[in-house]
């Protein structure tokens, strides 16, 4: 048995999206910038996608959608554009949270080196940022608030509609990295007062290497890539039309089946959470209810995540971990540290992100095998031995 439970990393492309991509690649041979018929047919198809994406996100106009290479590029462009535009006006302060994706955090680190001031608002143990904390962090020098819609590790949903409302009242631009949320939970940029939004196609069963940045009309973007006049002069390079068509088809499917999928996923998710909760000295990371329908993230005391991950893979379960060993640094996940997990237990984390194709039998298989692997790793863990002997205090 092989169970793919790492859908927050990437998803399987949908048949509909793949078909649409192949058809597009064969049918639209022209470059949308060319003036001949083939070029203009491709330009029309590109516009159809832009219009569709805008409508699926609740945007007013097609021109507010800029196609990018993915979520990271969209995050970079949104934040750099806003920061550099407001610098000349003396607005050099940015508000964000401690557990953003690195595509946001590393941009902010670079801006700090360039003289910007960044406030990273802390998050509580439930993994949800408080609107009051964002409000307190905003000063008259703040040019941007950037808060993710759903956390990529623990899946917690952030109060982005409330933050959007607050930012609108304060006259501050609001960007949300919605890479994990789009296609999985309801997003409407108009209703939620979002000025800038990043998304990535491969997180909702679309192709990799394509994403989009929504920028409200009037929000001026700065180029990351200079060259031709594609994307209204804001992103040079011939448009990857087949990928854009695939992304549009995938998002249409995802939005159409959003409620039905969420309902099914929540049942599976809660079954998985209930099963894993029975493992002693374990804890669910992030709020139990207010999280992505697909996301389960646990810490198990006395073991290390990478070995758990590899042994689960050996039993056919594909997951991920926030342990230091999987992050390539000495520190475990910044997300788990941000919600207050001590390093000792943050090393023993496991993220399982389900897809609608998963079954109850598969969930039960995951529970059984996780329990067995955790028990085995504890049996060879000197940390567990000390915990059991009372030489070390249990944290969980």
């Amino acid at each position: 048995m092989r169970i793919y439970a790492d859908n927050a990393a990437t998803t399987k492309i949908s048949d509909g999206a793949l078909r649409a991509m192949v058809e597009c690649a064969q049918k639209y041979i022209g470059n949308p910038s060319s003036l001949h018929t083939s070029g203009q047919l491709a330009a029309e198809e590109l516009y159809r996608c832009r219009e569709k994406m805008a409508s699926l996100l609740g945007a007013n106009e097609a021109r507010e959608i800029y196609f990018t290479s993915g979520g990271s590029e969209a995050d970079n462009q949104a934040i750099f554009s806003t920061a550099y535009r407001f610098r000349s006006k003396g607005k050099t302060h940015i508000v964000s949270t401690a557990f953003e994706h690195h595509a946001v955090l590393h941009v902010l680190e670079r801006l700090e080196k360039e003289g910007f001031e960044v406030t990273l608002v802390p998050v509580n143990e439930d993994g949800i940022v408080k609107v009051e904390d964002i409000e307190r962090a905003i000063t008259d020098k703040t040019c941007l608030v950037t808060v993710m819609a759903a956390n990529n590790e623990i899946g917690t949903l952030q109060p982005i509609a409330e933050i959007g409302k607050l930012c609108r009242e304060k006259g501050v631009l609001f960007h949300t990295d919605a890479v994990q949320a789009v296609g999985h939970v309801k997003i409407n940029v108009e209703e939620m007062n979002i000025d800038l939004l990043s998304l990535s196609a491969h997180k909702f069963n679309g192709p990799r290497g394509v994403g989009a940045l929504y920028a409200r009309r009037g929000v001026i973007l700065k180029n990351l890539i200079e060259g031709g006049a594609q994307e209204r002069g804001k992103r040079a390079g011939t448009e990857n039309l087949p990928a854009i068509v695939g992304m549009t088809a995938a998002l249409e499917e995802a939005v159409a089946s959003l409620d039905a999928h969420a309902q099914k996923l929540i049942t599976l998710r809660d079954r998985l959470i209930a099963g894993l909760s029975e493992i002693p000295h374990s804890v669910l990371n992030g709020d139990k209810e207010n999280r992505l329908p697909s996301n389960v993230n646990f810490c198990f005391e006395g073991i290390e995540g990478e070995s758990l991950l590899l042994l689960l893979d050996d039993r056919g379960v594909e997951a991920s971990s926030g342990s230091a060993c999987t992050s390539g640094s000495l520190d475990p996940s910044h997300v788990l540290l941000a919600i207050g997990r001590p390093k000792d237990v943050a090393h023993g984390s496991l993220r399982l992100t389900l897809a609608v194709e998963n079954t109850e039998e598969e969930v039960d298989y995951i529970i059984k095998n996780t329990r067995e692997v955790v028990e085995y790793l504890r049996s060879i863990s000197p940390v567990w031995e000390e915990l059991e002997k009372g030489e070390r205090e249990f944290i969980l």
Partner: protein
Amino acid sequence: MLYSEKVMDHFKNPRNVGKMEDADGVGEVGNVKCGDIMKMYIKVRDGIIVDVKFNTFGCGSAIATSSMATEMIKGKSIEEALELSNKAVVEALDGLPPAKIHCSVLAEEAVKAAVKDYYDRNGIEYDKEQFCSGDCEHCCGHND
């Protein structure tokens, strides 16, 4: 793949894993905050390590390097065990990713810590410089 076949073999089927109640020397190195702890037990007869066991909290390569290190010192003299280098462990495992080299350092230090404990218990004189200072940041930082 991240790991060689040998690393995966020693990780999935670790040799000499377990505890030893009547050990002649026990060494523990690492830090739970760094994500790796190795505990090594040795049984010594006439200067020869006749048995060795280990317990490890850590990633795949931490478990594999512990396992390999125990195999490499079992049946050897104390002096030979002290000569075991992290490099030899890495070579025996057909290599480790650069970020995991510190695991092999930990395995070397675990062997030394067990020997040091054996020396201490038996009042045997030794050069203290030869052994782990207990500051694992030192090793982690330099081998990453």
